[in-house]
């Protein structure tokens, strides 16, 4: 859909010299892509409908929720109200929870991105004894399930005084994000032609300059994916926060919403609006980083 729309714009631009003749007729193109598009549309719908339902619900008065399905509201838009949101934002607990989530998510993401990009550099571009062994160990770490480590780490945190602290949760997420993050970055770096690094070395760059000026800019798409991945994972995490921060004064949004579920039964006005607020941030992050997902960063480097 988007691709077609974009081509159309390019073709209708005045003075654009696109070779129209060589392209296949539009009808044929649409037909051949139809099955793929249909599947994609179905998947998108499957995800969008509940999300949309949540959105609509968050704008409905609580009594309506128990009376009828959310789609009814579409027939009577006048019944929609922002009172749920006003309520959520006034009670303060949710605002505080959103802030706590950010306090956990941002450092846990930044740390993972920074450490992984550096570690992968060492794994790919530096020669040192035991390099391959370390990499194998990393891959092995990826298969350790997070749940297995919860209790031992909680005990350890108890000794270290990290239990019940935001720092403890950040550390946990960083530690469990790193193996995959390093693996991902390493694989991306391996695709950077060695010649480029050698050229830079001959041009007089040391490792720091090669990392900052060559590898990091070229690794941007992978870093963006990694950042978003880690951000979403930590933002939406309930389990880890519940274990380490369950009874704390400041809890992240997932824990806050969860406790609403537990305490008052389906406290739907709060839950729907808070959930939606919690969804918006990752969406903003996703769309603002999307432009870094450019293909062909290496075009023209070699050959």
């Amino acid at each position, binding site marked *: 859909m988007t691709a077609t729309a974009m081509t159309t714009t390019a073709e209708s631009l005045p003075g654009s010299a696109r070779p129209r003749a060589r392209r296949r007729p539009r009808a044929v193109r649409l037909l051949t892509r139809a099955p793929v598009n249909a599947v994609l549309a179905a998947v998108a719908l499957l995800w969008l409908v509940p999300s949309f339902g949540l959105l609509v619900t968050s704008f409905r008065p609580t009594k309506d929720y128990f009376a009828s399905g959310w789609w009814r509201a579409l027939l009577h838009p006048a019944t929609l109200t922002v009172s749920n949101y006003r309520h959520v934002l006034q009670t303060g607990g949710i605002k505080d929870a959103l802030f706590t989530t950010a306090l956990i998510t941002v450092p846990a993401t930044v740390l993972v991105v920074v450490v992984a990009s550096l570690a992968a550099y060492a794994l790919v571009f530096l020669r040192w004894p035991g390099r391959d062994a370390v990499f194998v160990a990393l891959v092995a770490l990826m298969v350790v399930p997070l749940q297995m480590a919860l209790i031992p780490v909680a005990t350890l945190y108890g000794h270290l005084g990290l239990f019940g602290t935001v720092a403890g949760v950040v550390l946990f997420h960083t530690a469990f994000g790193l193996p995959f993050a390093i693996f991902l970055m390493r694989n991306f770096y391996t695709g950077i032609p060695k010649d480029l690094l050698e050229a830079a070395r001959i*041009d007089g760059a040391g490792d720091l300059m090669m990392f900052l000026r060559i590898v990091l800019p070229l690794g941007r798409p992978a870093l963006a994916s990694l950042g978003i991945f880690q951000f979403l994972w930590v933002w939406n995490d309930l389990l880890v926060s519940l274990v380490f921060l369950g009874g704390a004064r400041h809890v992240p949004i997932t824990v806050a919403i969860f406790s609403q579920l537990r305490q008052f039964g389906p406290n739907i006005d709060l839950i729907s609006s808070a959930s939606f607020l919690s969804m918006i941030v990752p969406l903003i992050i996703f769309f603002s980083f999307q432009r870094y997902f450019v293909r062909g960063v290496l*075009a023209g*480097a070699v050959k």
Partner: protein
Amino acid sequence: MAAVTFDHLVKRYGDNLAVNDLTLRIDDGEFLVLVGPSGCGKTTALRCLAGLEEITGGYILIGDRVVNDLPPKQRDIAMVFQSYALYPHMTVHDNMAFSIRLHKLPKAEVAAKVREAARILGLEGLLDRKPGQLSGGQRQRVALGRAIVRDPAAFLMDEPLSNLDAKLRVQTRAEIARLHRRLGTTIVYVTHDQVEAMTMGERIAVMRDGVLQQVGTPKELYEKPGNLFVAGFIGSPAMNFLTGRAALDGDGVRLVLDGAEVALSGRAGAAARSRGEGSSVTVGMRPEHFEVGPQGGQGLVRLPVQVDVVEFLGSEELVHATFAGSEVVALVPVASEVKVGDTLDLAVPDTLVQVFDPDTELSLDGDGPR
């Protein structure tokens, strides 16, 4: 600017001896071409010189400094990669400025140097483009530009033309030669293409299986190849070889092959004669030295051949013929009017015939090098 010296350089990859005892001096300001077939160790030698590979033995000197243990950036060399290795996320300008910026040159000087290099290479209009938006030839020139802004002690080039099409290759060949004349910087140029080597090099070093075979000017290598390998490698189409037994005959020698004989006179005869009666001898004749059925016979070595194929090249024809069961290739003027099936004499002045010992593969020419 500086001379470059390889002193008994050895480079081993595991059991594989990539460069075997290379000793070679490249003079200050010289254009030396390192040539040889694929896998002979040219790139390895160059990478050792650049500091990208650790060497196993011997010494490398740039100027009179032993650089064995210096990292690339302290060797004051610039390298042009076969793949160009342009930084894809930087503009042409930034690609060229990268190294001199790292060396902390003042801004104005960086700009001036890049502008000068761009002018020399005709890249002025392209400075704001990224490598992905350039043609192959333009990328190649950016790679050259990145090297020349540095004003290094020596340029190292590893097959910089092999990604260009034939026409552009010829053009860029001349451009690099011109650049060398203008800058006067030492160039070590690696290629597997003997035509490139012959046309560009002031001197050529021929390598094979990690071993240096011969060093000399293009003319020397063409006229006095030191061994069978160099003789067959330099020159296009390749030299014809015939191996037979020497039979002493008065002043000269008859080369006895399967069911045929060739009379060797003059210098070639003397060289073959020195091997003694009945010893085996290989003679080499360049395709372009043959004449078709000339009159007279003094000082000529004649091969009566049967013509199999004639390839028309424009002003000349490539004649594939058979002599005593071996193929003989001759490059003759179209005016010779050779036809398929003809039986005729191909003759070479005996002064141009090369004589080799087929066992040691060395030239038997007394005054030949090595």
